[in-house]
């Protein structure tokens, strides 16, 4: 059972407060991010595949007073799987990972990931990430994010519908603008 990406993002937007910091890895999440009704500081990555989790970890270590939420894709995580071990080792309690699992490289044209069932939740648990769960429905996201606040690092896998015809908006902010807007909201 999969959930449309936009349903996950709408559920996230409804639960975020202005104190949160949000990082989106390249692709659909980063392209949606400026269009979501959120007051939280957000940083959309146009490139640097695989870096959304460690970038968010740096923010979480720098700002332990803020809940940092990283939106990452399954293909990106597979490119940088060791970062789960780093998460387990650092124990950043204020970091929450939302892993959009659609089994495709959506941002590069929808190619399939290597055809093997990889249990990323089990890998996160094996790396001693204290909260590692698969969420079944968008309604589960708000309580999960709330429950992870200062109890993380948390890793939630979001089974996501791959829709090659999804009307994903284009990138609408340039990097300097993204950095400056983020800095203003963090301050």
């Amino acid at each position: 059972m999969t959930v449309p990406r936009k349903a996950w993002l709408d559920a996230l937007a409804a639960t975020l407060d202005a104190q949160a910091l949000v990082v989106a890895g390249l692709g659909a999440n980063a392209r949606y991010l400026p269009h979501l009704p959120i007051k939280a500081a957000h940083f959309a990555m146009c490139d640097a595949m695989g870096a959304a989790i460690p970038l968010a970890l740096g923010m979480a270590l720098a700002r332990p007073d803020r809940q940092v939420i990283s939106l990452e894709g399954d293909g990106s995580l597979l490119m940088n799987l060791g970062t789960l071990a780093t998460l387990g080792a650092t124990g950043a309690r204020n970091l929450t990972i939302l892993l959009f699992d659609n089994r495709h490289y959506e941002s590069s044209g929808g190619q399939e990931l290597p055809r093997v069932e990889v249990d990323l939740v089990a890998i996160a648990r094996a790396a001693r990430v204290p909260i590692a769960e698969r969420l079944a429905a968008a309604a589960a996201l708000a309580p999960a994010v709330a429950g992870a606040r200062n109890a993380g690092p948390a890793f939630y896998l979001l089974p996501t519908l791959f829709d090659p015809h999804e009307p994903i908006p284009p990138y609408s902010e340039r990097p300097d603008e993204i950095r400056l807007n983020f800095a203003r909201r963090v301050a």
Partner: protein
Amino acid sequence: MADARPTTRHGARAIVQAFESAGVTLVPSVPDTWIGWLMEDMRRSTKLRVIDVTREEEAIAIACGAALCGTRAAVVIQNAGLLNSGAIVGSLVHLYRIPCLLLVSYRGDERDPTYYHVPKGRATEPTLDAWSIRYAKAEGAARIGEQIQRAIVWTEEARAPFALLFSAEDLA
């Protein structure tokens, strides 16, 4: 003997002191032999938190995340790891113009003529030039603290990465 452990640690302590006085608080790192020696001093600091990571791109991304939140970080990696990191330097550090100090153990140059390090040593400076990363070679224990302080100022004024390349003898 390139991997002979230095009998003194003046340079290592100067690096720690320079980080502390510059307000660096996070040090994401992947070790090699020389970095292992340096980290013995780094981990004794009450002002620095060493973040052990699995891959150099992670270290750079962590430092960038900290910098975006106004926290000073310094990445400590070997040149092998630097050579792994072209994509993240281009698509995160340069693209978003994020200050980023890279303290890089420089294996395979004339101070470290170890045959299996030499290819990395030959590639390091041309790669830094190709990636538009400004760099300097450390000039020993007496100068390395000042070099770090200047490098940090430069990264923040230029909003760009800077690599300081050190050898085992710079830790002595």
